[in-house]
């Protein structure tokens, strides 16, 4: 890449809050394009240090900053919550750096940066989901040597992870993988679906939206283009089990069981003082809409009393 001349530097009007220069954005977009061209392949990229620490979403942040434009509408949330502290920090950084509009409504966003959840809303063709990835290597539990990992992906030699599934069932009666379930992309590469719950995995299969995965610390980007096969690894005769609970959301009343039919959401547990548990939707904005409450756009989500 050609270095800038002094003229170039003087002519660029620097926004003091800009967290990434334009050359870098281009570099990241190129890595993203490579990733989209080879679904599920982990593309190494020159991951820059960001104002958030490694492990805190620096990879997702780089992708988002590289793909948004001034006209973009952005949603950033964490554990399903728009109001979480880390999401609020990321949202602020991106807004100050790139001048985007923000929203909490997943249906209205062009780009959604997320940590650990996929929206309960069905996303559409022109939307991009950017997932924060702490550890991009799906085979990490069965192999640590990086040369061997490289070979396994290159030769599609995934026997070791299949064996771990077999052993799980044999020793534990069930597949014990919790979140970040390994999935086969387009019949070729296995990816770590970041730590999203199994509940969210079926939303990825043949989805109309583009999913981009950013691992800043490990310096890898991977992607699942729209309408691509995403198959969680499991045996033909062992059904893929999602996290269900025989309870309802204490706020909107939706069910915690996909199998019931009707509206269902991923619920998280709130242990009470008396030893019982209440359950509530993880996806706060979606939950709120189930209640028919509307929020003004472009504002950070504010806590209501009942919440």
């Amino acid at each position, binding site marked *: 890449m050609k270095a800038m001349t002094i003229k170039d530097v003087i002519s660029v009007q620097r926004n003091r809050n800009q967290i990434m220069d334009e050359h870098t954005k281009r570099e990241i977009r190129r890595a993203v394009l490579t990733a989209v061209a080879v679904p599920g392949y982990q593309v190494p990229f020159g991951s820059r240090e960001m104002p958030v620490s490694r492990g805190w979403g620096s990879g997702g942040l780089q992708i988002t900053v590289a793909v948004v434009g001034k006209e973009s509408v952005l949603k950033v949330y964490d554990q399903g919550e728009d109001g979480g502290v880390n999401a609020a920090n990321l949202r602020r950084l991106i807004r100050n750096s790139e001048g985007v509009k923000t929203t909490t409504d997943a249906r209205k966003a062009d780009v959604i940066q997320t940590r650990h959840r996929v929206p309960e809303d069905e996303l559409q063709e022109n939307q991009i989901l950017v997932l924060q990835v702490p550890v991009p290597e799906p085979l990490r539990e069965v192999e640590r040597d990086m040369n061997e990992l490289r070979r396994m992906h290159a030769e599609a*030699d995934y026997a070791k992870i*299949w*064996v771990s599934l077999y*052993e799980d069932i044999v*020793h534990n009666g069930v597949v014990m993988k919790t979140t970040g379930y390994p999935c086969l992309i387009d019949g070729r590469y296995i990816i770590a679906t970041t730590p999203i719950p199994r509940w969210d995995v079926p939303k990825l299969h043949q989805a109309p939206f583009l999913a981009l995965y950013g691992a800043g610390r490990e310096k890898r980007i991977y992607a699942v283009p729209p309408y691509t096969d995403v198959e969680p690894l499991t*045996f033909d005769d062992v059904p893929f089990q999602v996290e269900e609970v025989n309870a309802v959301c204490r706020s909107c009343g939706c069910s915690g069981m996909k199998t019931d039919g009707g509206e269902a959401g991923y619920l998280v547990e709130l242990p009470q003082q008396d030893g019982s548990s209440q359950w509530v939707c993880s996806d706060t904005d979606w939950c709120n809409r189930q209640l028919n409450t509307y929020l003004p756009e472009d504002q950070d989500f504010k806590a209501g009393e009942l919440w």
Partner: protein
Amino acid sequence: MVNWSVQLQDLGCIYGPNDHASADETGPLFGTNVSETYDSVVACWDVNLHASPGEALGVIGESGSGKSTVMRCIAGDQKPTKGDLRLVSVEGGQRNIFEMDDSARRALRIDQLAVVYQDPSEGLDLKISAGGNIAERLTAAGWRNFKDIRDRATELLHRTEVPLNRMDDPVQTFSGGMRQRVQLAKALANKPPVLILDEPTTGLDASVAAGVLDLIRGLLDETGIAAVVVSHDFNVVEMLTRRCMVMHHGRTVEVGLTDQLLEDPQHPYSQKLVAAARG
């Protein structure tokens, strides 16, 4: 149409500077594998063999004879200096396996060529269960049904006389003889047409060894597999093979029907070995 399952021609393997001329100063006539001039070891040279379906070929020799090198070259664990290896199941025997790249050779080990090592830990993952080791081969071959995998593993372990109540135990908790049985079961998982056995019972107690040998013989009869049995022990070769070859200082010194060779060895080195086995 060929009638062999595996054919090896002109195998040579030199450790060190691999000038082919070093072969001219080594071998039984020189009493050594080591080439002084070229500072290399000619582990084996000009080795040929073949085995047909249902046939077992023995390769006998003491340590340093080159038999292990031959085994490793066929298995793909060692790169030869020269040679031509073919499997009838790969392009009808038209392709020289030695010219394939590492990935392709590894793929052969899934269901075209299986190896049972002298040390079971070379052929097994000790940390996973007996059934899991077999599942590894089956899933590598594309099996995706848990019940089918489980049933096949059960069937194989039953046949190799591994107690089924130990099927889910990690292999590192098994005795040597039991590990060898698991290795056999794993090797046969995908019904490979060719099987290499390297000192399959060396290191096992005599009574245990006898049982494993019996098992192997039964399996060879049943499966119609083409086998190459590498051993220093004439008793093993006698029990398992119809033909055999004797190696010394990296070369083949005698080839023949096992029974005949044992009864009437021609080469002085073969005579020494037979005498030692009998005496």
